[in-house]
């Protein structure tokens, strides 16, 4: 077998057992790896409460991981989210994923709950559960430093230990498994960290074909202004979007009350480069290197983070934003949800937190003390508790990222159809509505968006299962990645067959969610977007969304997906016909 190892490591923290098992080849062919494989492996567990000890926490790499396929040293972490209640996956890059593959594994599935804090140590042949009492309560840096001799490290911080509903799992090199609170699931299992080292090499079935496909991908990267253009993400990281979103009048500001923040230039890509001495960093083996670090080696914030600790909280102090980002990383918390929760809290009480208060509130959240006890539950529960549920700018309890849906109607639809809640990355319509890739679409029109979003969701489910980075698709397409996959595995894949796999994954996730009670009522945007206009300027009007057109398009989407008008499945045995 090429590409895959065909092995999964099952770890039971309750009884302390670790065993390697075979993964049926047909499942690997049908779900690839990463998100797809993880979601399939959840089939018998998706109804469990996220904090039930028996729920699996799955780390799955893809068939391209371990090769020099661009952007593919990645994994997906899959379980059910304690923040959203949905099935949840997050893609993350870094050496950790590459070492899982090198240790001979396609996936690690962790169940059970340890009575004492532990960490899991994996190498080529063994897996051990070892005490981590001394590390419990420690931040990410110290934890990683303590364990780095054992290989690559992924760990939770105090936020995960304390059950913060948007706690991350942090990778040793600064990447994060973010958003849905998977760090809290890991913490509930008493698992502080995982270390992995391996020496295996991923075989490639057809080296010549692989080299040609890789060259095609790299050529497309070089042809993409978003990737390797002189104003692109390789140069400035995702904060390259700050100026663009300001110009397009769709940068969420003060809890989405407006869509333009006059001082956003303070934390634009060029400003970060100038003020922080930003230098190129990135996921292991990635040619794009879109992550940036300061001249002192500190990871610098991404676009979502600068906007949300910036405009969304009415703050233009770049260095305060950088500190908030660093603090979230150290405590193991998602920056988007943390900042958005503070913003909702700020609007509810009539005052957004100033930079000093942001820092203290972040500490309180991670330790669940003071106001942090409530804020640790995320914006939906905070707003509800404060009697102002309308102030949570979230979908399915997941806080919205930094693209105002009034400025991109495909984004509006994609937020609600996303299976993990208000996420920009499931369909990523910003790619065509704003960045003009692969072709531009009219951002102020719903026309055709139902089909476009459906197709993009299928594509991205496949991308998350390869696992590759979505930024690669600002240049390349599934044509080139299908070639890479065929060359690596020796199994023929192309864009259409990959989209079919993506569709299977998407529908499986949707089915899980529906079985857990989700339906059309949960596919809803906050009322603000239908009743309040965004900030006009530079000849651009940002009117409220037209609810009638939005609902029409949502119904179209359901029809295209073969769902009922309520967004549910007609066939309760849907899963039985799937591999």
């Amino acid at each position, binding site marked *: 077998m090429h590409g895959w190892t065909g092995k999964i490591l099952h770890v039971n923290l309750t009884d302390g057992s670790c065993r390697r098992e075979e993964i049926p080849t047909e499942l690997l062919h049908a779900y690839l790896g990463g998100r797809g494989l993880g979601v399939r492996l959840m089939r018998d567990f998706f109804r469990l409460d996220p904090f039930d000890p028996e729920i699996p926490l799955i780390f799955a790499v893809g068939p391209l991981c371990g090769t020099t396929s661009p952007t593919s040293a990645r994994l997906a972490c899959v379980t059910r989210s304690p923040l959203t209640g949905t099935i949840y996956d997050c893609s993350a890059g870094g050496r950790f994923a590459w070492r899982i593959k090198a240790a001979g594994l396609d996936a690690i599935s962790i169940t059970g709950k340890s009575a004492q804090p532990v960490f899991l140590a994996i190498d080529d042949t063994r897996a051990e559960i070892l005490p981590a009492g001394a590390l419990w309560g420690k931040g990410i840096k110290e934890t990683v430093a303590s364990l780095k001799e054992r290989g690559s490290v992924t760990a939770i911080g105090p936020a995960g230990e304390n059950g913060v509903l948007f706690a991350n799992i942090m990778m040793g090199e600064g990447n994060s498994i973010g958003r849905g609170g998977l760090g809290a699931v890991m913490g509930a299992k008493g698992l502080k960290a995982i270390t992995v080292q391996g020496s295996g090499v991923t075989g490639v079935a057809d080296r010549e074909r692989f080299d040609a496909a890789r060259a095609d991908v790299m050529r497309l990267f*070089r*042809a993409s202004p*978003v990737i390797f253009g*002189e104003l692109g993400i390789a140069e400035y990281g995702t904060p390259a979007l700050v*100026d663009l979103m300001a110009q397009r009048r769709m940068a969420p500001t003060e809890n989405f009350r407006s869509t333009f923040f006059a001082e956003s230039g303070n934390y634009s890509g*060029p400003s970060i480069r100038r003020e922080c001495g930003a230098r190129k960093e990135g996921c292991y083996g990635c040619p794009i290197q879109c992550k940036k670090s300061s001249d002192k080696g500190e990871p610098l914030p991404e676009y979502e983070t600068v906007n949300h600790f910036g405009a969304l909280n009415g703050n233009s102090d770049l260095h305060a934003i950088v500190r908030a980002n660093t603090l979230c990383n150290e405590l193991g918390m998602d920056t988007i949800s943390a900042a958005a929760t503070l913003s909702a809290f700020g609007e509810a009480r009539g005052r957004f937190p100033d930079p000093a208060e942001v820092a203290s509130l972040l500490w309180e959240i991670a330790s669940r003390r003071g106001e942090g006890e409530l804020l640790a539950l995320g914006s939906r529960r905070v707003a509800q508790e404060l009697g102002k549920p309308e102030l949570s700018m979230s979908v399915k309890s997941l806080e919205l990222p930094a693209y105002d849906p009034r400025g991109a109607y495909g984004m509006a639809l994609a937020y609600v159809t996303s299976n993990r809640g208000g996420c920009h990355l499931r369909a990523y319509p910003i790619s065509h509505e704003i960045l003009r890739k692969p*072709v531009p679409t009219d951002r102020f029109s719903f026309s055709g968006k139902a089909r476009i979003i459906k*197709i993009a969701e299928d594509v991205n489910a496949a991308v998350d299962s390869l696992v590759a980075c979505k930024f690669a698709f600002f240049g390349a397409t599934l044509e080139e990645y299908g070639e890479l996959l065929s060359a690596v595995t020796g199994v023929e894949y*192309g864009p259409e067959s990959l989209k079919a796999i993506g569709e299977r994954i998407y529908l499986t996730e949707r089915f899980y969610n529906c079985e857990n009670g989700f339906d059309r009522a949960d596919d809803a945007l906050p009322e603000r977007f239908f009743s309040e206009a965004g900030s006009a300027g530079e000849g651009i009007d940002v009117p409220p969304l037209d609810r009638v057109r939005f609902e029409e398009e949502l119904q179209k989407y359901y*029809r295209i997906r073969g769902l009922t008008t309520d967004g549910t499945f007609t066939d309760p045995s849907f899963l039985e016909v799937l591999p």
Partner: protein
Amino acid sequence: MRDQIEKYSGKLLADRSALPGRIAFAAQDDVLISDGAPDLAELAGATLSRLNALALVAARPSLPFADFLIARSPKGENCILPQDTETRTFLHDIPFLRKGELGDDPAPKIAVLLGNRKGVIVEGVGIVTLGAITVEQAFINYSSVFHSTFVKYLQDVLAEGFLLPGEREAFQAFRDQWLRPLSASGLVFRDKLSQEKDEILSEIEAVGRYTVERGLVDSFFGNISACAGDLIYISQTAASLDELKGCIDPVPTDNSSTTGITASSELLAHRKIFEQTGARVILHGHPKFSVVMSMLCEARDCPIKDCWKDCPHVREIGGTPVVAGEIGAGGLAKRVPPVIGASGSAIVYGHGVFTLGRMGFGEAFAALVEVENFCREEYFRRLEACMLPDEHKA
């Protein structure tokens, strides 16, 4: 979507890449629609219904070159490899179906091929291309396949002559009837472009339209810029040259803003050209004969295999330098700026032409016309020279 179908059917007619009455589109949202020539519309709908995509065009190209390429291909071959770098970068190869393979219902076979590639040539039927997320994308892919087959066929004829019955006559008809004289006459340009934003935007929009209307380029093949003080105004990536209104980015020359992340992938080349030549405007397009001629290299026993990116030599066609270089962040931005200043124009191997205007677009447009006309004439001169021995034998 019907308005989009109407729009892009019109564009296929306007750029004369498809035969009137032989165009059909299909598109699907929650329902599938198709429109155009009934038999092609049925084929388009039947094919698209099997694919996870939004749109598809099936049209008979106005020139028989794609069919000729299939007929000239050795038995057993099933795809064409584009020779020009632009379409090769995005299409990789173009699969084809021969007449004998079609059977009673070709849609499933076409769908299988389109499941892996953006476009396919169906012998006797036409070019069928997919738009993954828009109708426009299907049109762009059609244009790319048309461009690619045009360029490759002309190259092949120059290298191998006519091989098929009727080929010579069809080619003569192409030369006498399909091709039209290229000129800038009658077009209005500002003699000296001011620094005013509105004037610059309006001039760029007009020049974009001219290049398409005059048949110099297909609408998606090129980019245009003007320098004004600390700003470069440049057409956006994936912008149609004949529809540039609202699709021009002002980019600060000192990179103090990244708003121009949506600018053309050739922004770096434009910036370097401005820096090294002092020009006011730049026009870049992919006129077909220039692309064909740029790949005609007479060097023998040359060790360089990937000429389009690795050739370090500066050749010349009619006084215009020819250099190699990949698009975007590849080598083009390094190799064009040093050579373009002297002649005001430069050709990139297998890609297209850059021209300059010191004061305004009149000079740049005239230079583009001149380069393409020279290449066209030179192509036919060489072809006639190749054909002469056969003529004498006859």
